[in-house]
């Protein structure tokens, strides 16, 4: 057991170490000219040689690990402060999760219609599929302004944008899932004289769950992008997107890097949560 765990973590740690070993000289090389110029200008820095100063520049080209660490600490404590990462990440996570649930609900209705009616499928499905290749995120700034006109404000419009982006993959995934039981199983339901409703409840919906979760995992990242862009495109008081646009305006380099890491972590966590829910909801798959 211990051996296998070592075998799993060993390569990861080695690759991380190699990446670090490349990153540190890169920081020095990238920041050296700027550090030399800053020192020559006579700025007050907590260091005396240009080489040492590559790790302490206020606006570095590449932030050094110690600066990133300092940035993370400065932005996470206290966790409830309006500028703190945990609070803002929490709101973005809420928007994304609400959006995904909304998308799953509406997507389910569409999927049932698609499966029940070939006419509906012929009329609508080509547009649903085509719209998957459309950069839907481009709609976000417009949707926020539009929803704001109708008095939908706060976290809800961002959740709606997240839902809108996640809607198409989820609909297609659910429709395929509802369609996935084979002919034999459907015929068996028929011999039992099951109604369409019973077929859905007992056979189709359970069969569609794995497809739903596959689609959810794909669209979680997209929904997170939607929530963040939604927060950026309007007046927001909380959320990682708000922090991003504020930081981009203030051009606080260390801050943008810390935010990038935070967004990545949130994306990974959300997908892990979807994975966990999948295991709880579809225990027979394991």
């Amino acid at each position, binding site marked *: 057991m211990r051996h296998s765990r070592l*075998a799993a973590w*060993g*390569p*990861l740690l*080695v*690759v*991380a170490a190699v990446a670090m070993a490349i990153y540190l000289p890169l920081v020095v090389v990238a920041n050296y000219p700027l550090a030399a110029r800053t020192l020559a200008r006579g700025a007050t820095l907590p260091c005396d040689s240009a080489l040492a100063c590559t790790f302490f520049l206020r606006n570095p*080209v590449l932030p050094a690990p110690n600066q990133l660490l300092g940035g993370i600490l400065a932005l996470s404590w206290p966790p409830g402060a309006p500028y703190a990462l945990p609070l803002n990440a929490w709101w973005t996570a809420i928007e994304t999760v609400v959006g995904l649930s909304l998308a799953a609900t509406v997507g389910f209705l569409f*999927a049932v219609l*698609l*499966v*029940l*009616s*070939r*006419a*509906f*499928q*012929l*009329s*609508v*499905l*080509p*547009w649903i*599929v085509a719209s998957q*290749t*459309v*950069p839907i*995120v*481009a*709609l976000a*700034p*417009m949707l926020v*302004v*539009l929803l704001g006109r109708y008095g939908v404000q706060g976290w809800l419009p961002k959740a709606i944008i997240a839902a809108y982006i996640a809607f198409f993959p989820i609909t*297609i995934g659910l*429709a*395929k899932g*509802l*369609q996935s039981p084979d002919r034999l199983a459907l015929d068996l339901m028929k011999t039992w004289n099951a109604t369409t409703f019973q077929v859905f409840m007992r056979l189709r919906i359970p069969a569609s769950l794995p497809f739903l979760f596959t689609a959810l995992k794909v669209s979680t*990242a997209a929904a997170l*992008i939607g929530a*963040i*862009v939604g927060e*950026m*495109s309007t007046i927001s008081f909380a959320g990682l*997107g708000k922090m*991003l*646009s504020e*930081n*981009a305006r203030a051009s606080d*380099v260390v801050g*943008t*890097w810390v*935010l*990038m890491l935070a*967004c*990545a972590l949130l*994306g*990974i966590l959300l*997908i892990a949560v979807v994975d966990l829910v999948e295991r709880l909801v579809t225990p027979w798959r394991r």
Partner: protein
Amino acid sequence: MATLSPAVSDQRPRPGMAKPPIAALVLCLLGHLALVAFLLAWWREETAAPFAYRLLLGLAVAVGGIGVGGIARHLARHQLDPVRAFVPALLTLLFGLLALEAVLRAYAVPPGLWPTPSAVFARLWTARRVLLADAWQTFVLEAVVGFGIGVGWALPTALLVARCPFLQRGFMPYAAAFASIPIPAMAPVAVHMFGLGWPSKAAVVAVTVYFPVVVNSVRGLLEVDRNLLDLMRSYAADERTTFWRVRIPNALPFLFTALKLGTALAMIGAIVGEFFGATGQGLGFRIQIEAGRFGFDMVWAAILVASLLGIAWFGLIAGLERRFTGWHVSLRE
């Protein structure tokens, strides 16, 4: 268009063609004619239409909707060639656009809230120079160049990782984690590093495309049927022959899946990247600026251009996929 409509519906079509659905055709035609008549009558008016007009309009939308639905239901009952299978979708789009135009005009919805389709198409024409320059910046310089760089780096990486089990355990988890970085989080960092011009957006696109292509290609190179490998062994084929004859062909469908996903990611990356700073050009820049001053006809026109480019690009990759992996199960009829 057959590829655009995978059969998910449960109803099985019957072969052959029955008599045409006269009633549905008449209703559909009536609805369309009524909408066109209203639009012609109300084209130059700026105010909301009187109640009687709006009532008639509602009736026309209902009648036309029933007609379109009837035609779709009639066609759905039969086995269709791809062209005729696309008729309901086309009818729905046409009718939807006409109805939207008529309703927006009947209620005199201000263009700052929701522009009419005709206003969008008119803007598409009058602003064609601006939009073409934007599309050049966003699509060619940012999306396509970034995509090329990303794929160009991803393929050697995938080959290296597939040859080296150590990297499979040490690198792939990181690749999967990096693939889940939201694009907008990378954009400010890239803009700061590479400036406001197109290279920063191309860098974002390259990074977003890189990871899915690596992950999928590695899967394709490794998830090879054991029987095939055994067969190659029984032929006494060397490593290199196995690689070229078995692993590469096996990886192609995976690669093309990633490339198709990559086209969408590249468009999103280029557009979202421009939200964080651009040099006054680009579809994303245009969308953000115009949405901020309620120029929604321009916003929609820019979205339309981006969508058409995205669909054309996706279609190109899908065509290449059919050309190079036509033997694969998923593409055989």
